[in-house]
C-alpha cells in the first residue's frame, strides 16, 4: 500500500511539472484568497488593536497555523471532498470491487492537485513565527510539524463526515461549502471571544480550536486560555487529530455498508 502511495505521488509530481502554467495560476489564486482574509484582519486591528489580549501579530500567527494545517489537508486529502461527485456520477462503485481499502483508493485518484496553497502556507507560517515573537527552540521545531499534521487530520475528519453524509443525501455541496466557510470564520479569532457553550463545541465536538487556538496559546505563552484550560492542552493536537479521524472513519464505514446495502 505504501509503495502504491509513493508511486501515486511520483506520477502527481510529474503531472505538476507538465502543467506549470496551472501551477502559477493556482498560486496567484491562493495568494489572493488568503491575502483578502489577512487584509481584513489587519484593517480591523488597526482600528481595534486588542482582541481579548491578542495583538495583530499574534492573530497573524493564529491564522498561519490554521492555514498551514488546512492547506496540508488540501494537498493530501482533497479527493475526499470529491466523493459526493463520484457517487453522483457512478464512479464510486468501482472502488468497491477492488482489493484495496476504499478510502485509500479515493485518496489516490489521479487528480491535478498542486501543493501551491501548502507552499504559500509554510512561507506565511515562517513569516508569522518571526513577527509574532514566538520563542523558537528545539521543542518548537520538532512539535510544530506534528501540530500541523494533527490539524490536517482534524480537517480530514470533517471532510470524511461530510463525504459520508453523501451516502444518504446526494446533494451535500452547500453543506460542505457552509461548513468550510464557517470553519474558517470561527477559527480566525481566539475562541475566548465566544460563550462557554460555543467554546466547548469548538474544542470537543468539532475540535477546530485544536488546529490553531490551543497550540498558538501554548507557543505564545498565553496564561488566560479559554475554558480555563491549561495552555499545555495545545500539545494534545496530534492525539486529538488521530482520535477524530478514527471516529470519522468509523462513521465512514457505517455509511459504506449502508451504500453497499442499498446496492445502488
Amino acid at each position, binding site marked *: 500500500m505504501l509503495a502504491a502511495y509513493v508511486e501515486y505521488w511520483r506520477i502527481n509530481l510529474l503531472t505538476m511539472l507538465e502543467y506549470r502554467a496551472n501551477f502559477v495560476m493556482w498560486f496567484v489564486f491562493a495568494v489572493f484568497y488568503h491575502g483578502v482574509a489577512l487584509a481584513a484582519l489587519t*484593517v480591523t486591528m488597526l482600528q481595534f488593536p486588542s482582541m481579548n489580549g491578542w495583538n495583530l501579530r499574534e492573530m497573524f500567527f493564529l491564522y498561519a497555523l490554521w492555514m498551514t494545517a488546512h492547506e496540508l489537508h488540501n494537498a493530501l486529502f482533497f479527493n475526499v471532498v470529491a466523493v459526493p461527485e463520484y457517487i453522483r456520477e457512478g464512479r464510486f462503485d468501482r472502488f468497491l470491487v477492488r482489493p484495496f481499502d476504499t478510502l485509500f483508493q479515493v485518496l489516490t485518484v489521479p487528480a491535478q492537485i498542486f501543493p501551491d496553497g501548502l507552499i504559500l502556507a509554510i512561507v506565511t507560517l515562517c513569516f508569522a513565527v518571526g513577527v509574532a515573537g514566538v520563542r523558537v527552540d528545539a521543542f518548537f521545531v520538532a512539535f510544530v510539524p506534528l501540530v500541523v499534521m494533527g490539524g490536517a487530520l482534524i480537517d480530514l475528519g470533517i471532510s470524511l463526515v461530510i463525504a459520508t453524509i453523501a451516502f444518504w443525501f446526494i446533494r451535500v455541496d452547500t453543506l460542505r461549502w457552509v461548513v468550510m466557510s464557517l470553519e474558517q470564520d470561527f477559527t480566525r479569532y481566539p475562541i475566548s471571544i465566544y460563550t462557554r457553550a*460555543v467554546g466547548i463545541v469548538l474544542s470537543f465536538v468539532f475540535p477546530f480550536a485544536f488546529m490553531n487556538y490551543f497550540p498558538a496559546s501554548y507557543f505564545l505563552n498565553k496564561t488566560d486560555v479559554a475554558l480555563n484550560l491549561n495552555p499545555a492542552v495545545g500539545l494534545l493536537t496530534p492525539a486529538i487529530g488521530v482520535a477524530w479521524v478514527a471516529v470519522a472513519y468509523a462513521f465512514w464505514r457505517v455509511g459504506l455498508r449502508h451504500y453497499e446495502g442499498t446496492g445502488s
Partner: protein
Amino acid sequence: MAAGAYVEFARKAFAREATYRMEVFTLVGSLILRVYLLRSLWTALYAQNAEPPGLPLHSMITYATVALLMSLVLEVDGTRLIRERVREGTIATDLMKPISVPIYFFSDGLGQTLLHALLIVPSLLFALLLVHVDVPPPQTLAAFAFAFLLGYGVNFFINFLMNSVAFWTLETFAMQLIVRWGSDLLSGQIIPLMFFPGALGRFVFALPFAAVYSTPLLIYVGIIPASQWPRYFFIQACWLASFGLLSLWVWTAASRRIVVQGG
C-alpha cells in the same frame, strides 16, 4: 415582445430555486451562526479598545447584521447563466429567440433574487433572537432602500460584465472569484470602509464597490447624514450608468462576435 414573458422567466427562476429546500435551510442556518459570530467578535473588540467615532457597539452590530441580510440578495449571481450558456454553446439558440437576451438574464436573476429576498424574513427573525438591530426613522429607511436598489443595479452589472468575459476567454471562474473576494473586502460588507486608514480609506471610498454595500449601510446607521444623501445617490447613479452603458457595449460586441463566427 410583451413584458409578460419576462415576468414568466422570473417566475420560473423563482420556482427552480425554491426546489432546493435543503440548501435554503442550510443557508439560513449558516447565516444565524454568522450573526452569532459577528456579535461575539464586535463585542470583544469594543470591550477592550477605544470606540471609533460615530459608531457605538449597537450601531456596529446593526451594520454587520444588515450587511449579512443584504448579502442574501446581493450574492445571488443572476448572470451566471451567461457563462454556462456560452460554454455549452446554447447561447446561440438563445440569441435566435424573439426575446431580448440581456433582459431575459435580468428577469432570471430577479426571480432568484426574490426567493432569496423572502429568506430575509426568517433570517431576520432568528437574528433578532441573538442581536438587537436598530431601526432608523422612516425617511432614513426609505433612503436606505433607495440606495440598496441602486447598489443592486451596480452589483448586477459588475456580475454581468464578469460573466460576459466568457465570450472572449472561456475560463472566467478564477477571475470571478478573485473579484468576488476583493469586493467582499472593498465594498464594506465585512468591515466598514472608514476603518481603512488615511489615503487608503479615501481610495476605497472612491471605488465602485463602495456603492454596493457601504453607501446603503452607512445611510442606515446614520454615518451619512440626510444632507449628504443626494451626493451619495449621485455617485451610485454614476456607477450604475457607467456600468450599464459598458454592459450594453460589451453585449453588442459579444453578440456580433458570435454571429461573425458563424453561430
